[in-house]
């Protein structure tokens, strides 16, 4: 198909200033066992291409699932029409920003391939794991699931660019639901955040095998646990909550398209303004955050973004100071600031926009034990279960599945209904401890939503356990 596309693309070149073709072929295999019953398996293959045309200062796109020469010709005609309709009406002179004529390849690093286990063997694996979750009558629902994804993309440009990338992902999931009366508690394997780039070796890396009994035990324990204490106190967040905290209150607010206003009608704006880059104290001096699509094991690792810019690791926050936004080439030109290679589309049928890709909090020098010992009164929270933040990405309230009270430097009893709230602009300045590299977990989500038309995309986050001071902590009703 790749060879055919290249020859067809050469054959349909219209009389315009620039044209590109972005092809995506993505396959999913979803396997799940719920209550020891194999759920309907579903496989999917999504294939298509987006033709993007620049003519004068106008830009238009057309996406099609018809990859024949006539189908591509029709699509490029529609893209050309949109480029010409929008001449003189755009937010920028798109004629000044054709893609570079870059050539390159990227391929995921895979240990054990998805197909190294047969379908039956994968189902048997899930059945065995699911069977271990149901260890008590109060476990009323339980699921073990695996999704395997393979994705291939090709970006061709009329000025000779050719970028070919092949990705492999595995997204495991497990949940135990415990109930007694009208009290229901759940424990999941890292929320929905355990996906990584790679193969089935991921299951060993994330502790999939040991998870069933632990999740069941913890869900049962939560049923009779007291509510989370209330008050202003220290808060230790495990990596499976830190990824959400990073995602919502660092990642989104520093996306350049939000700062430029593109997202104001949907995902929202940002409290961050362009003049803050280079000087704004986003957090304490312990806060170091990198944009890193070059790390091989995260969900949004790649060689090139969908505008063809090469992936490079960049500090976006160093020693607490905000350095650069998450903005791809189009946003960088519009804003006149340097950014990163993060112009990405969810698939062939959506145009690229600024996304956070892999956004990681760099490890520090505190062990978990030392952070706990430093807390007089606080809570250690694990596993995100609720997230809400204002449209400027400032006032947030997050909830966790599981908590443990800390008193006088010691971990005490388990608590349920764990919530905390704060303001991004001040929360990170109260970062008092950052865990060592041994506490880092590589996680991410396949479900980051944004954009008009809407796009859901994979993003990666790696984070250590962290300690924050003066946080407003509370329970539910």
């Amino acid at each position, binding site marked *: 198909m790749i060879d055919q596309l290249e020859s067809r693309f050469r054959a349909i070149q219209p009389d315009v200033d620039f044209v590109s073709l972005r092809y995506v072929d993505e396959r999913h295999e979803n396997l799940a066992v719920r209550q020891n*019953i194999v759920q*309907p*398996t*579903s*496989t*999917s*293959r*999504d294939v*298509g291409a*987006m033709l*993007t045309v620049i003519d004068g200062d106008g830009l238009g*796109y*057309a*996406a*099609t*699932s*018809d990859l*024949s020469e006539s*189908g591509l010709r029709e699509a490029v005609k*529609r893209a050309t029409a*949109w480029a010409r*309709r929008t001449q003189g*009406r*755009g*937010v920028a002179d798109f004629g000044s920003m054709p893609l570079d004529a870059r050539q390159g390849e990227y391929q995921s690093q895979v240990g054990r391939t998805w197909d190294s286990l*047969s*379908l039956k063997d994968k189902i048997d694996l899930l059945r065995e794991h699911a069977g271990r979750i149901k260890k008590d009558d109060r476990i*009323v*629902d339980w699921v073990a699931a695996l999704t395997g994804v393979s994705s291939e993309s090709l970006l061709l440009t009329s000025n000779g660019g050719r970028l070919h990338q092949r990705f492999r992902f595995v997204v495991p999931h497990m949940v135990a639901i415990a*109930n007694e009366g*009208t009290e*229901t508690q*759940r424990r999941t394997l890292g929320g929905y955040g355990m996906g990584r780039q790679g193969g089935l070796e991921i299951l060993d890396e994330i502790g999939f095998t040991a998870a069933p009994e632990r999740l069941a035990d913890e869900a049962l324990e939560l049923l009779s646990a007291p509510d989370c204490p209330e008050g202003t106190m220290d808060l230790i967040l495990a990596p499976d909550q830190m990824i959400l905290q990073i995602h919502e209150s660092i990642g989104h607010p520093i996306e350049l398209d939000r700062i430029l*206003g*593109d997202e*104001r*009608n949907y995902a*929202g*704006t940002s409290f961050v303004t362009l003049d803050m880059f280079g000087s704004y104290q986003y957090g304490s001096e312990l806060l170091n955050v990198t944009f890193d699509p070059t790390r091989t094991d995260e969900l949004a690792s790649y060689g090139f973004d969908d505008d063809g810019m090469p992936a490079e690791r960049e500090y976006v926050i160093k020693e607490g100071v905000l350095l650069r936004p998450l903005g791809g080439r189009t946003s960088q030109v519009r804003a006149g600031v340097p950014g990163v290679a993060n112009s990405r589309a969810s698939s062939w*049928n959506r*145009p690229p926009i600024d996304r956070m890709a892999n956004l990681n909090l760099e490890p520090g020098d505190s062990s978990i034990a030392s952070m706990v010992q430093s807390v007089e009164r606080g809570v250690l929270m694990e596993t995100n279960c*609720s*997230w*809400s*933040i*204002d*449209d*400027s990405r400032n*006032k947030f*309230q997050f*909830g966790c599945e599981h908590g443990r009270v800390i008193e006088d430097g010691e971990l005490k009893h388990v608590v349920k*209904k764990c*919530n905390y709230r704060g303001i991004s602009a001040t929360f990170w300045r109260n970062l008092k401890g950052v865990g060592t590299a041994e506490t880092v977990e590589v996680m991410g989500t396949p479900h980051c*939503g944004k954009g*008009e*038309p*809407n796009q*859901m995309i994979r993003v990666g986050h790696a984070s250590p356990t962290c300690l924050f001071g003066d946080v407003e902590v509370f329970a*539910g*009703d």
Partner: protein
Amino acid sequence: MQTYFNEVADHITSLLQGNEAFTCTFDGEESDFIRFNQGKVRQAGAVSQRSLQLDLIEGMRHAAGAIVLSGEREEDHARVAGLVKDLRAQRAELPEDPYLLYATEPHDTERVDPSRLPDPVAALGEIQSAAGPHDLVGLYAAGGIHAGFANSFGQRNWFSTHSYNFDWSFYHATDKAVKSGYAGFEWDPSRFQRKVDEAVRKLDVLQRDPHEVPRGHYRVYLTPDALNEMVGMLSWGGFGLKALRTKQTPLLKLAEGEAAFDDSVSIAENTAEGASPNFQESGFLRPDRVSLIDNGHHTASLVSPRSAKEFGVETNGASAGESPESLDMAAGGLPEEGMIERLGTGLYVGNLHYLNWSDLMACKTTGMTRFATFWVEDGEIAAPVNVMRFDESLYRVLGSNLAGLTQERDWLLSPDTYFHRSTHSARLPGALVEDFAFTL
């Protein structure tokens, strides 16, 4: 496209072996998208896509797969044949599915709404003209949406509609904006202009200095848009039978009689007056109406075929996710006219944003005010408010603290475009609520 889908279905039939059966669904759209920022075009283009979801069945074993169709007969027949072959191989490795249930009595239906959409160039011109000097940001999405069902028992269902959905905001500054929506099937310039004029009037109020509301409990009026965000949370696992029987629904206390909403609260899945197809992926037809909450009490759940088999009840045509697609909340007795005076002193909440559960079993949600939300004092709009976080139980908002629902209701066509343009809709009143908790 309907003819094309029927040909594909016939082709699948021709590929069956032995006692095989199948169900399949089709989704297609041809959409124009124009994205605006500051009244100018950020991105504009077109998307043409069609996909087929096929469940290949033999006895109680089955395997499901989805592919994209190109629209070219020869190519698609080859893709379908490849899918059938793959699913047959997968099925051999899978155990029997005790909860497999699909329609076997054919019930054909057809709904085809012809296109009365404006030319996209005309729409673009009208929108930019209406924007004038204002900072307009948003998305115009328009075009055909098609859905089909077919099975090996000869059932054929088809749904085809052509709609537009212009979802936009006028911004004053920073986060101060008026959100508007104009959706339908036939563009009416005068109606669109009225929407624009109404938004501009609200924009004037946003230019006043904002009022900082301290934490506390306030009397609020939730517009239908704002109430839709709260009630929409119940669509997230609230109304399905599986969520009820596995004790995960936020309405568990309502269903078990430990809590109740106000008598005026009635919620239904109203397929007859919605914009979604009246058939689902296993071939079952949806009744015109399923009452979910009646006079404050839980009456029924949405039941997918799979849940029907698992829990031994009849399906009512719900999709696998068991969420409402055409939510209908009954009107109340308060006239919308004079609502500001009736509110007296409190908050007029135009929109809510980014809701989530803060205590699922207490049916408690948290979220933010957004867009045109005003401080009202002595029956008059005094000032816009800076965004506030709320944290409230729906058992209070629609129960003990509900002062009334409006007589008038708005029909809201979902602007969602994840993967494809949505046909979901909601019809709701506004709500006057006492002691609504703001926390940050």
